[in-house]
């Protein structure tokens, strides 16, 4: 297939990319844009390691055609840190052991961001259900819940002090 020029807006920057119409968003991110933070962990969109935000909604980039994402705001893990510092959820994942081998971590963080944007005060059930789209083989998920609660608390503290 012949490559075509598409325009993708990723992490608030616009990129012109040459890719085949059949190219998946995950591959374009990883190869053409060298944004290797999003990972491939499976063949059948079952693991969530490729999760990115499309207009703020968590979606699996291995199941999206890059060309179909034109005009949308794509956020990858590389767009999560704030001004060169770790965001609350990133810091919390490190402090609480939410990441061990780290391979599933970018996908989880995107899912968590999507969850908290929609539901800033999720119950344990809400959190488990939201995280069920991402698989982890290292942590057993427990320390992730602690990390998420800690991040929610930290963001509330930060919001309170800036008032």
């Amino acid at each position, binding site marked *: 297939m012949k490559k075509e020029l598409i325009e993708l807006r990723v992490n608030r920057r616009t990129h012109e990319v040459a890719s085949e119409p059949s190219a998946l968003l995950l591959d374009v991110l*990883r190869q053409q844009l060298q*944004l*290797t*933070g*999003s*990972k*491939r*962990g*499976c*063949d*059948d969109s*079952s*693991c969530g*390691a490729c999760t990115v935000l499309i207009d703020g909604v968590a979606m699996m980039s291995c199941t999206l055609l890059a060309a179909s994402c034109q005009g949308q705001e794509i956020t*990858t*893990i*590389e767009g*999560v*840190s704030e001004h060169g510092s*770790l965001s609350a*959820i*990133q*810091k919390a*994942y*490190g*402090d*609480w*052991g939410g*990441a*061990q*081998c*780290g*391979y*599933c*971590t*970018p996908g989880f*963080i995107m899912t968590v961001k999507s969850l908290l944007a929609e539901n800033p005060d999720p119950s344990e059930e809400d*959190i*488990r*259900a939201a*995280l*069920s*789209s*991402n*698989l*982890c*083989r*290292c*942590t*057993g*998920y*427990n*320390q*992730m819940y602690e990390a998420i609660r800690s991040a929610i608390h930290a963001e509330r503290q930060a919001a309170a002090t800036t008032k």
Partner: protein
Amino acid sequence: MSNDFSIIGKPTAMVDAAEKTTGSGKYTDDLSLPGLLIGKILHSPYPHARIKSIDTNRAEKLHGVVAVVIGKDAPKTYGILPVGHDEYPLALDKVRYVGDNVACAVATSEAIAEKALELIDVDYEVLPAYFDPEESMKAESHLIHDHKPNNLEKDYHHVFGDPEKGFAEADEVAEARFIANEVTHAAMEPHSTLAAFEVDPHTGKPGRLTVWSSTQVPYYLQHKLSLVLEMPMAQIRVIKPLVGGGFGGKSEVIPLEIIAAVAARKAQAPVKITYTREEVFWAHRGRPRTIVDLKTGVKKDGRITAVKARVVQDGGAYCSYGVVTILYSGALLGALYDIPNIQYDGYRVLTNKPACGAMRGHGTVNVRFAFESQLDELAAKIGMDPAEIRQRNLLEPPCITVNGLRVQSYGLPECIEETVKRSGWKDRKGKLGKGRGLGIACSHYVSGAANSIIRSDMPHSTVNIKIDRDGGVVVYTGASEIGQGSDTMTAQIAAETLGCSLSRVRVIAADTDLTPIDIGSYSSRVTFMAGNATLRAAQEVKKLIAAAAAKKMNCAEESLTFRDDSVSRNNGQTGALAPVDQAEQSPAATVSGRVEGQILRGSLQQKRKDEGPKGQMTFEEAVVAAIDFHGALTGTGSYAPPPEARGGKHKGAGVGPSPAYSYSAQVAEVSVDEDTGEVTVHKVWAAHDCGRALNPVSVEGQIIGSVWMGMGQALTEEMVWKDGMLMNPGLLEYRSPSAVESPSVEPIIVESIDPEGPFGAKECSEGSLAATIPAISNAIYDAVGVRLHESPFTPERVLAAIRAMKHAKSVNLTEGVDPTSPKRFREHGGSLWFKGKGPERHALDPCRHDVSAGGAE
């Protein structure tokens, strides 16, 4: 030893946490090189076949294809064990499992390489195949490996003490068959390797090879590459990038790692090969399906008198770690409880399926499931509480078990007490109502094998430290970080010993050019062995710094305290500076021969002219002083297990001995739905004796992770086979649990402070997995009164057991769905290889043929 540590024992974020949470860290598939080619592997569609011919011409002519490699391009065998060099990177004459590696095409894109595979013509002569280990053991012809009669990779027969006498003395004896089905690591990162040759400037020809690979064992990879490529190891550099999990699946050399190098050599360009998830399942090297025939005798007082275990492991098509796996199954019957008489007969059998290797807990897990379940049955027979029967059979260390294992630190008693207390065992067991129950089980594991895979006198780990004028501490360790926290452990031990802040330490790891050898991240050896080597290297450098600082501060070296980036003279007053001693001011000679003070520059020089000896120096000042005296500050430390820990002399005695064992005791609370057979695990209390928790956050994470993985094997994970084809090579079909299926785990850290571990630490990553499976099966018994002897405890199996107990008609869940499907085909390893009984294959189906398995027709 003081317990007042500044770094050790404090919850610490991993030193690479930011790389992981920002996505900036590089795993192998994230790497690229100019001119990179992508490789794709052609796999065998047959479980057992001779390769008559391979024609790669059409593939090589495809535009974009740079090279195609086959077996003849690397006709040298290798294997992880010295006795098991039975694999070629690409099959030479025979394929032995569906998924075996036949050819590799490298091209300018993945799509072109995949297209090229379709253009490779392979002519196979299909052979009879073996899928059931007990059938395979009877094979007389069409052997999987010509040098292994009866398809028996290895068998062992051990007798310790007098088991017959022990059984005669028992008041109660239980005997049963247990089956643990096949599971695999399913690490989130698929295997990936990037190989590139450099040009040698002196010869002008291709020279050094660099390989980046997702591996737990970079040094074994370097060694096997050297064997197969017939290159000296000195010309091969292996670098381990971030690794997305291993659990044993990357603890041996996996075919793509060598294929990438062979392809790079032929293509004369860098080659990267990354497995698809399906290929990861085919590569496997997981835990074999195991049949355990177990017999245990106990007295009325609960004391175990004898154990007899016959273990058959369905090992797949190649040796892999097989000889070690079958030995662990017997060896670690010892060192948990005090068992005076043991008979062990182990059989590692070859079958035409992907090879099994080492997986978290190795050969100990499936036998532990059988033993802890049977012990529970015996407790019920003698009317004793299951927690109490375990407490009646404790070892009294320091001791050597009947099978030659040395036990020193032994936190099992405290683990049992803690888990019993926290779960409310005494008050709640048997009182949770119908369908809900508690179960208890114990397990243990080695902190590294006392005898290395490749026997030599070499240390198992060596670590170098460099401290330079900038005050930075660089630790060079061969130890492989795979997500378990080894880099962080290294930094913590160095920082604690030197009394410097963690941020001052930089860990350079697992690069065979830069770091001294560490034999790898497997059998949970890294904290104990590489940690000890790190400790010794740090102590060596500390001595140099102490000598210089003592001279500067005019005191004895022993009176110095290294802490919080300072070196202080300790006069019994914590924190306060001692009065300055002005008497001795004579300049001391330095290594350069010049009087100290003159070779320094700038403000420090001026400052030192004005001051006399003081009571405290910053870490940097102490380092500078030491460099003045000694030159560059480097330290090296090595660790090899002591001879006393290396075990007995009987055949196979080399596997099992360890310098220290970790211990685990767990209580699981489950509910069982009697109508559907579905088991829900509500909570697991898991107490683990790790010697000392160097990083509590990581230790808890490892305990939770291993309990979770044990639960996966207990309830949902199973590789399902049919005619040598894996039916479920996907994460959801394999049923790796997601967040909604995963229970709350309460990790309980027990610290027995091992006399030989670094700061007393032992392993914490594998020992807990094994106990979870029987804790759940014992809880199911408490809940609904059925004993499950086959894992995973799927709803089908649980329901069948409940119905059998109620003498209900057995329900054939496939009745009416597929009339040709034999009853309970899964329980037989999916073998439908009966002549005339299997489903009718389509005339054009390449797997259709009329040959039957086994010996003569």
